[in-house]
């Protein structure tokens, strides 16, 4: 089980260590401003991706170092060797894959379309055509909304996006079901509703993003996630932060 898996991932070869930004540490970039993925609670950085990062680091036998910053800075920083890996709810796209490498997925995200509960027209993905949707710049949601013909208004902050919907300044937002559920845990949402889009939109795989110059580390991270999946850690984390298991492909 667990101990075994740990041994496997650590292995004998330590070549990957030369690929680390900081000796003996796994430097992890994330935004830190998106609950429940990563956020601040009682003065400490926490969240699903934070705990995941700690577990991955443990598996490969180094110390985790978290570096919260802005979206653009995550991309720019990976390029200029500021982080080893980015855990920030990122999907692999062909365009992105050209520039960066992706390790094994840890979440399969289901899209939902969130709107006001009195909103009549928005029932399917096709119905967003010509509507105003709020999405974070650089997110996959943004791309989907654009692809289906919505007018996209940029805003990265989830509660603010919901505020825009409530104030009737935009019609809806496409986001992950998990984000909405996490919000609903501590906030009233009776004025909002969501439509599950998983029938029309296949769940997308959320993957760690790494530099192409660190293939050995990539293998290590993938191996670590595999083990965490097998030993049930992923499921446990998912239940803790999302209230359900969203780490499985279906």
């Amino acid at each position, binding site marked *: 089980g667990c101990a075994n898996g740990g041994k496997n991932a650590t292995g004998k070869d330590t070549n990957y260590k030369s690929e680390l930004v900081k000796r003996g540490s796994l430097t992890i970039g994330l935004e830190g401003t998106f609950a429940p993925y990563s956020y601040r609670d009682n003065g400490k950085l926490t969240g699903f991706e934070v705990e995941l990062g700690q577990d991955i680091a443990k598996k490969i036998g180094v110390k985790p170092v978290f570096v919260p910053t802005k979206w653009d800075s995550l*991309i720019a920083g990976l390029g200029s060797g500021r982080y080893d890996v980015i855990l920030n709810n990122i999907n692999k796209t062909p365009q992105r894959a050209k520039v*960066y490498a992706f390790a094994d997925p840890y979440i399969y995200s289901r899209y939902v379309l969130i709107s006001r509960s009195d909103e009549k027209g928005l029932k399917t993905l096709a119905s967003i055509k010509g509507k105003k949707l709020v999405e974070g*710049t650089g*997110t996959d949601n943004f791309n989907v909304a654009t692809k289906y013909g919505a007018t996209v208004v940029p*805003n990265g902050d989830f509660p603010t996006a919901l505020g825009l919907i409530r*104030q*009737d300044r935009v019609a809806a937002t496409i986001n992950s079901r998990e984000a909405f559920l996490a919000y609903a845990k501590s906030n009233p949402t009776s004025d909002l509703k969501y439509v599950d889009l998983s029938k029309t939109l296949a769940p997308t795989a959320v993957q760690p993003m790494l530099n192409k110059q660190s293939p050995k580390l990539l293998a290590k991270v993938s191996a670590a996630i595999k083990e965490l999946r097998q030993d049930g850690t992923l499921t446990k984390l998912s239940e803790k932060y999302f209230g359900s298991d969203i780490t499985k492909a279906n």
Partner: protein
Amino acid sequence: MQNVLQYLPQLLGAAFKYTIPIAVISFVIGIVIALITALIRISNKRGVMLVVKAIFRFYVWIFRTTPLLVQLFIVYFGLPYLKIAGIAPDGIKLVPFTAGILTFSLNTGAYCSETIRAAIIAIPKGQWEAASTLGMTRRQALQRIILPQALRTSVPPLANSFISLVKDTSLAASITIIELFEVSQQIAAANFQPLLMYSLVALIYAVFCTVLTFIQGYLEKITSRYTIA
């Protein structure tokens, strides 16, 4: 290189659609607000005017000491919660462009009011006296004698404020306006080259700001046919 050039139309489109109009309109309105604020703050009237002066003092203080981003947020996201029975029962809900113009104007107005106020105070007392002795009212003296001179000396600091404003419009993205900087970030999100996009955007800002400094130089030149006594 052609790689870079392909993005220029989108960037310039955003610059001409949002960045420049927001900067120019806000600056013009800001100057008007600044002028009114400066005049109220130097007024020597008593009575109810003291309350008005205190209000304007507070306005300048709050807009100078808090971050512009927060101001934008509160005007755009906060005002809808401000429900005033009779006037705005559903809260004050501005479209992004209006909210942006309003906030940038108020911010610029606060800063520039200090510039203009200082320039008015620096006009020698003798100019006021010369106007009075001709029989001008305070209003005539201000309009015809004091302000033209004060505006001339405030050209350089006002130009500085304008240049800052141009760059600050990038914050408009936070209230959902897709201006120059936001567009560059959207492109960077796709091509994963933020550094390149940022440099390109910096260049566009630099060109626009440099044009402004040339205009400043021209204004300084045409208004400096005379030197202040």
